[in-house]
């Protein structure tokens, strides 16, 4: 289970699409709004290499998400 915070709530959808692209599935997904941001929890199942790639892509998406309009 990985817990993250993002400014753009749509990232969750992007992560799920990526997971399926990499041949993984999600086993658990939850999200809630925290002020102007979103707290997300998710867990994925799949081949080890794909999960590692997915994790790296999620980190990259979250890095870009820190670039806000404020």
């Amino acid at each position: 289970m990985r817990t993250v915070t993002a400014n753009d709530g749509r990232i969750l959808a992007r992560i799920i699409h990526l997971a399926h692209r990499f041949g993984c599935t999600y086993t658990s997904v939850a999200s809630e709004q925290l002020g102007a941001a979103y707290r997300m929890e998710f867990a994925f199942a799949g081949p080890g290499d794909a999960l590692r790639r997915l994790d790296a892509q999620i980190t990259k998406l979250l890095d870009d998400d820190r670039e806000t309009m404020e």
Partner: protein
Amino acid sequence: MRTGAAIVLDTLESLGVETVFGYPGGAIMPLYDALYDHRITHVLVRHEAAAVFAASGFARSTGRPGVCIATSGPGATNLITGIVDAQMDNVPVIALTGQVRTTVMGTDAFQEVDVAAITHQVTKRNIVVRSIDQIEPALRAAFRLATGERPGPVLVDLPTDVLRAFEEEQRQATVTQASPVRECPRADAQSLDAAVAALQGAKRPLLIIGGGARWSGATEVFRALAAHIGAPVASTLHGLGCADPGDPAFLGMVGMHGWKRANLAVANADVIFALGMRFDDRVTGDPTKFAPNAHTIVHADIDKAEFNKVVRAQITLHGDLRETLAALDHRLARVTLPSFEEWCNAACAREEQLPRDDTRHDHLSATDFLDALFAALPQDAIVATDVGQHQMWAAQRVRASHPQHFLTSGGLGSMGFGLPAAIGAQIAHPGRMVVAVVGDGGFQMSMAELATLRRHELPVKIILLDNRNLGMVRQWQELFYSGRYSATALPDNPEFTTIARAYGIESRLVDNANAIDAAIARMLESPGPMLLHCACFPHENVWPIIPSGKSVDDLMEALPA
């Protein structure tokens, strides 16, 4: 009191934008109204796909963001291929799309499409602007994102009511602040030391330079490093121009249609420095057989997610490539490296000539033409290619002295890219020779942009290598599909010289080898746009080829006997 549209243009101008490429339509009309008397120059293309490719050509040839504009609905969806293309090749493109009024969004209004959802997976970010006070911060964030670390496309969706709104009422409480600049990662000292140690222990090192060098501005520091090390150098498609094409240690392009000597060097190297590259399948072939004798691969890249994605690296250098290479060079100056001269000479001496088909005497050879073209072009000429056989022939032969001199759609392989990319490059470099090398298939996907050349008096030279076939697909059908030529013959191609003339573009037909030099000389002298229609031998193939998913052991240099 400005409108939202005026704020868009003023913000673009403050970000250094002088030219935008676009096509008007309903929802984006307020922005076009503001463009009517704004200092920013608008280049009207004839299809939105050309707008995004032209913005890409501008960005690829300058390193600065290219901006394209389209209306909502079909205008926005026509941008998608170019946006994906920019994502695959890490090109900082800003796409501005019109959108229906915020009050009707979600009601299937006329020309409404959720372009944000469509482009979510293929942009670094997209932003739907919902109020006038968001315009400036959204655009500034878009530029920071598009150009930051590993560049890429950002789309900003602009509802028509936001563009028409006046700032006075809504901006009073808004304070625009720049978000903190993200610190660019730097390769850590331990990994740099390990990379130096790997080089000290190497017997057959190879440097492979990739497209990351283009975006980090690492060309000069790479050349200095390569000279310091004295190892052979190879390049990916997007790395072409980083290495000095006249350097005897430069082996040329690696991969599917790379030079045999470059691929053999990959196979024989014991230490590989993969610099700003992502181990694309067109480079690696079968990744399990890539670099079989390399005990150490050092991978340097700005994007941590690239490490160990395709090929396992023993040492990773995470950071801006220019800084990484400078730090490496600094460390190398303090140590003694073994001589790699013997290995370098052996690697470079192999196979000086590219294999080629023996075309019939009465036909023009496309490769003959390109050899003559690249020998004649000025050193600072910019070459944009389309996609297909001509692209690979050009990549094998081009003598680009800088990566911004060779523009090609590598990752996505988008036909129709060549001419609009050349338009973008010519806008960015009005005094330079810009050449579009295109095939008859791809050219017909963007042929209407001849009108853009004429309208803006852009002296782009078009080399149309017409073999009356979708040549690359045909070649694969010949090699891998038992010669079943399904939907690849184009015997009914139009008379291209007549079409060019209809658009007011000078054109010449070249149909035999004896006419090549005079045609190129005439083209180089021509002050305006010109199309050379090269009627080529229809069955010339690209050699060598490593079939998809195979290794250098399977390299083919001619048709099987």
